[in-house]
Structures are given as C-alpha cells and as structure tokens.
C-alpha cells in the first residue's frame, strides 16, 4: 500500500477530486496548509507596516492506494492539478505499513 500526499493549489481541488473519482478512488483526506517552493510570496501593507508573506495557502490531499493503483493516481492528480505556472505543487509517495477500517476492523488492502 502507498500513501500519496499531494500539495496543490487550492482552486484546483475540485478538478483533482473529480479526476480521482473518475479512476475509482473512493476516499481522501483534505488539509488546508501553507507552503512555498519556488513560488514567490507577496507583500501586505497595514498602516505603513509592510509584511512579507512567504507562505501561500495550499491544499494537501492524502489518498491511500494499493501499489497497483499508484501510477494511475499520480497521473490523475498531476494532470488535473497542473496549471503550468510556478506553485502547482508536489506529490509525495510513502510506503503505508498498515490500514484499518475502524467500523469493521478490516485491515490491509480490504480497508483501503
């Protein structure tokens, strides 16, 4: 099993969600985060006090998939989240040691 973590631009969320549904991914977790890579921040000004804001709002989606689904999932996310401009985000793939469905106690691939 793999945990796929994707950091994307917030306004791309609907597109990514739709793309994941289309390939049969049933569930995901969403967190609102802040971050930056190569994308520049912006400046805010409040009564003469200038604030440089490096951290930009992003959205983190986490999806747990079977090993065999990994490539299709990455492709779906990449295509739907891409705008071509700096700040599109990143995808991280980590090994998932265990998955448990709380309601039933199922583990492993059945719990995905």
């Amino acid at each position: 099993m793999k945990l796929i973590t994707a950091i994307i631009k917030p306004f791309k969320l609907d597109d990514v969600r739709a793309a994941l549904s289309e390939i049969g991914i049933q569930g995901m977790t969403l967190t609102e985060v802040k971050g930056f890579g190569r994308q520049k921040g912006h400046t805010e000004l409040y009564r003469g006090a200038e604030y440089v804001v490096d951290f930009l709002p992003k959205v983190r989606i986490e999806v747990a998939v079977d090993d065999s689904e990994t490539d299709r999932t990455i492709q779906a996310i990449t295509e739907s989240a891409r705008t071509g401009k700096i700040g599109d985000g990143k995808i991280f793939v980590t090994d998932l040691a265990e998955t448990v469905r709380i309601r039933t106690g199922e583990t492993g691939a059945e719990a995905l």
Partner: protein
Amino acid sequence: MKIIKSICFAALGLAAAAAPSLALADELSAGDTAWMLTATALVLFMTIPGLSLFYAGMVRSKNVLSVLMQCFAITGLMSLLWAFWGYSMAFDEGNALVGGFGKAFLSGVTVEAMSGTIPETVFMTFQMTFAIITPALIVGAFAERMKFSTMLVFMGAWLTLVYAPICHWVWGGGWLSDWGILDFAGGTVVHINAGIAGLAACLVLGPRKGYPERQMPPNNLGYTVIGAAMLWVGWFGFNAGSELAADNVAGMAMAVTQLATAAAALGWMFMEWLSHGKPSVLGIASGAIAGLVAVTPASGSVGPMGAIVIGLAAGVLCFFTATKIKRAFGYDDSLDVFGIHAIGGIIGALLTGVFAAKGLGGAGFGEGNESIAGQVGAQFVGVAATIVYTFVVSFVLLKVLDAVMGLRVNEEQEEEGLDIALHDERGYIL
C-alpha cells in the same frame, strides 16, 4: 386702542410660547431635548461598539477580546465615576482649574433641573459619553500588553486628574475659556488629550514583544471598517450634539463633519495609493477617523469649504504620522492614538483658528480675538496647555502605577495572548 394693545400682547405671548426657538432661559425646548437625547445615544454608540470594533479588528486574534473588554469596562466605570465626582469636577463652579464638589453624586441634578433649554440630566449624560470615549481612545496605545486591573485604576485616576480638569478649563468655565478658544466638540478635551496620554502610555509601557520585527497584522479588518463606519455616523451626535440644541449651528456642524471626513478619507486613500501603489481599506477608514478628529474642534465655527481643507490636511498629514513617522521614531503606538488623535486634533484645533474667519466662510472668531493670527494664537494656547498637562500627569500616573501594581503583563501572558491569559476566553472558536 387699549383693546388692540391687549390683543397684540396676547398674540405675542402666544407666539413666544408656541415657538421653541424663542425660549426664555431655562424653558425646556422639546426639539433641543429630543435631539440631545438622540445625540447622547449616538456618542455612546461611538464607544460601544464603534471604537471597540475599530480597535479590536486591528490587534492580533489572540487579543481581540481584551480590547472589547477594556472598552466595555471603561464604559461602565467612567459612567459611575462621572456620576460620583467627574461631572461635578468638570462642570460645577469651583475655580479656574477645576470644578467643585457641589454636584458630586449628582446632587442637584434632579428630574426638573435644567441646563439651558434641555434637562440637566440630558446634559450630564451627554457629557458622560464624552468622558467615556476619551479614556477608551487611549486603549489603542497600550493594546496587547496592558494589565486589565491596572488599566481600570489608571482610567479611574485619569478621569479624575486629567479629563475632568481639562474639561473644566475649556467647557466648564475654567481658565481656557477666557482666551476665546474655539473648541466646539473636544479637539483638545478629547482628542489631543487622549492622543498625548496615549503617547505617554506607549513610552512608559514600551513596545510589544517582537515589535517591529515580528509581523502583527490586523486579525479582522472587517470589524475595523464596521467600527469606523459606526464612529462616522455616531460622530454626528458628537459634533452636532455639542451645540446642545437643534438649530442652525447644529445643522452646519453636521454638514461640515460629513465633508471634512469625506475629504480626509479620500486624502489618506490617495496618499497611500501614491506612496505604496495600492489604496487600502484600513487606509481609507483611518483617513476618515483622522478627518472626524480634525473637524471636531472646528465643527461649530467653520464653513463647508473650510471643513474640506481641514479634512484634507488631516487625511494627508496623519497618513504620514501614522505610517512613516511612527516607524522612524520607533515608538509602538499600536493603534495610532497619537498619530491620528493627537496629530489630527492639533491640526484641527489650529486650522479652526484660520477657517473660523468670516472671510473664509466661518462663523467668526472667539471672544477677544480679532484676526486669524489672534485666533490661531489662542488655539495654540489651548493646544499647548492640554499637551503639557496631559503628558506630565499621565506620565507620572503611569510611573506610579507601574511601581505599585505593574502596568504590563508578563512575557508569557503577552505571548499566550491576553484573551486567554487575562480573561480565560477565546475570541474565535472556529
């Protein structure tokens, strides 16, 4: 012939009784009283929630409630202290420096007592709302780091030792009333007074931890703009109500208030647009407040065009004092009490001397002054006296309280935020 004379006298008598503006001394005018009852409510509205929201939106979210708490508590405390001795010390006859205690505990302020054409109860309560908002303004200077307990003691002492005497000097028959100073609604008594006390406070307390390197952006500019709008509307009670009557002067006071404020709001907005490249909502709201402050002393003496100049001057100059100059000097006047209220008040007070001139559309100079130079000179005396007295007494008071009770919260409390540290509450449970 005799019959015609009697009929004439009778007719005159009826006319005098029917026309409120022809009221004899101490005869209640329903029009004046109705207006003053309304104006009183409008000025209270300026503090709660106008000023409260204006300030609360500008601090960090962990301190949003502390500001609301301070303003609300000041409202309660000043109301009572005004009744106990504040009103008497300001408006009872006494001497040139302070009123007596003849009206302490509102002795003599009965249901029937009159103050001109309005009941004295209304006059007293109207003035109470001024005694509430003036100390509340100072909150902006020590926001985010002042102990609540010490603040209460400071405010009580400040009302007694600073506000009431200065109020007496200008409006209560004290020594400044002999100079023909024009301060219609409190440029000196309220704004310069609070602004300078605020400066003393931020100097004695010192800057917030992390200032100016750490970012401390306003947590809710929506509140701030709403608060500013409430202040604008309420200010009609502040300025037009200072006529204590529903008449032509009040009408002009309302008109000039609106125009000066509009000019100031746009003035600040355009200055910021030029200086930074984009106009901001905090800027336009701050500009409006600067205009309101500056037109306060002028509202009974200047004409519409003069008011626009005054507003423009305040909007442009206060932009500089609240932004660039503050940063250059390094003091942490968190919410620009000095930059807007003191400076705006000074600009307004001095320009009142200019635009009161009949030739410039004004209503004429104060008693004893014959020229713009003379009037500005008189205005200067009022401004200087207020600045010196307020600064010295406020400074000493703060130093004493610091030694006895401590003014500032400790570092941990300041870091955690006053809402949790002092009040066990959170402003936003989202």
